[in-house]
Every structure is written in structure tokens, then in C-alpha cells.
């Protein structure tokens, strides 16, 4: 279309399963709807841009009171419970034919979603550029705000 594309700006600040899915689901869908899409990965969200990281994204049952596991909250803090909850969650998602995070990231890159890696987070967490996937661009708060000021939709996740 020759007319101006609609634009969506997303901040991804989390890197557990419930935090990682929404930005990638919405970004890929928006790209499929011909939006111009940018995701700003900051704080723990920056982990999603690390190489080979997406397979290791987990969910912890401690604090997830809505997680349908019949255990008291305190048991969720015991060793092994995060691995167990992650395994369960992944098997439910597989049964429901939900795309994997890697599939979504591949589609995002293929469809031209801009992936911005927060510079400040990189220094705080001592993450080197070579640890990040190809195709992400460095940026800061001003980069995001300038982009978001022209966006129809802005989401913080």
C-alpha cells in the first residue's frame, strides 16, 4: 500500500514464558497486518535477544497464583519446581499448537520487525553485542520515545 503504514511500538521487559509471548505474538501479528513494528528489549526482556536463549525461557510457579498446579505457593519455591512448571506449560502449549518463541522470533525477523536492544541494560547486565542475535539494533530511551511518538499503539509488557 502506498499510504502511510500504521505503527506499533512495544517494550519487552520480561523474559519468562508469560512475559516473552505477548510481545512476540503481537509483533508478528501486527507485521502480518501490515503495521510497522518495533520492539524495544529492556531489562530482563533483553535476554530474549540472546543467542539460543529462547528455548530456555521458563516459568516459575512461585508467585504465579493462577498457574493450574495443585501445590501450595511455598512448594513452588523448592528446587526443581521451575523446571517442572516449565515442562508442563510447554507441553500444554504444544498440545494447543501454539508457536514456539523461536518460531515467532524467526517470523518477526523475516517480516521486518525492528528489534532494539537497550544499551543501558547491556552495560548493567554485562551483555556483549556478540552474545545477541544478528539483526538487532542498539538504542536507548530517546530512540524508543521518538519512534513511539508516531505510533498508533504503544505497549509496555
Amino acid at each position, binding site marked *: 500500500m502506498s499510504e502511510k503504514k500504521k505503527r506499533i511500538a512495544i517494550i519487552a521487559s520480561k523474559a519468562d514464558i508469560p512475559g516473552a509471548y505477548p510481545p512476540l505474538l503481537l509483533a508478528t501479528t501486527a507485521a*502480518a497486518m501490515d503495521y510497522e513494528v518495533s520492539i524495544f528489549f529492556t531489562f530482563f526482556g533483553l535476554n530474549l535477544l540472546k543467542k539460543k536463549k529462547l528455548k530456555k525461557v521458563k516459568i516459575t510457579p512461585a508467585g504465579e497464583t493462577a498457574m493450574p498446579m495443585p501445590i501450595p505457593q511455598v512448594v513452588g519455591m523448592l528446587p526443581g519446581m521451575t523446571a517442572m512448571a516449565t515442562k508442563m506449560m510447554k507441553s500444554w502449549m504444544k498440545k494447543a499448537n501454539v508457536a514456539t518463541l523461536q518460531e515467532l522470533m524467526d517470523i518477526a525477523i523475516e517480516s521486518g520487525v525492528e528489534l532494539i536492544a537497550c544499551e543501558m541494560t547491556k552495560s548493567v547486565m554485562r551483555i556483549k553485542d556478540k552474545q545477541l542475535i544478528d539483526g538487532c539494533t542498539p538504542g536507548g530511551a530517546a530512540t524508543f520515545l521518538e519512534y513511539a511518538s508516531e505510533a498508533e499503539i504503544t505497549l509496555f509488557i
Partner: protein
Amino acid sequence: MSNIKIAKTLDARNLSCPLPILKTKKAIAEIGIGDFLEILATDPGSESDFQAWTKSTGHELADHSQDGGIYRYIIKRTK
């Protein structure tokens, strides 16, 4: 409906949101402008999703129906 010739069928049955939409975006690029894409889906949310997608992209939702839990969409590639 008899004048519609399906150029391609996308089987998106049993796929969860947003895969039917993501796969439709790819599939529509593989047919010619003016041609029709048929999509089969089981996601009940697809009904409103395909209306939103065609509204946003400008492709035409030529027909949609539901039979026994299978949703069928016919989309005309317009550009």
C-alpha cells in the same frame, strides 16, 4: 460462489492464534492479485481475527462459513 476459483488452500486447522493469521499473510503472497485463498481453521477467535486482518490489510473477505467447528474463509488478494 461458483465464480470463485480457489488458487490455494491453507489448512490452519488445530493451530492456535496467531498462527492462522501469520500463515495467511505468507500464503496470500503466493497467489496472484485477484486470486482467491481458502483458509480452514478451528480457532473460534479466527472469525473476528480474519475480519480484522482483511480490514487492516485491505484484502477482501469474500466469504466465510462455519460447519461442525471448521471455519472456512475465502479471501481475495487485492494488491
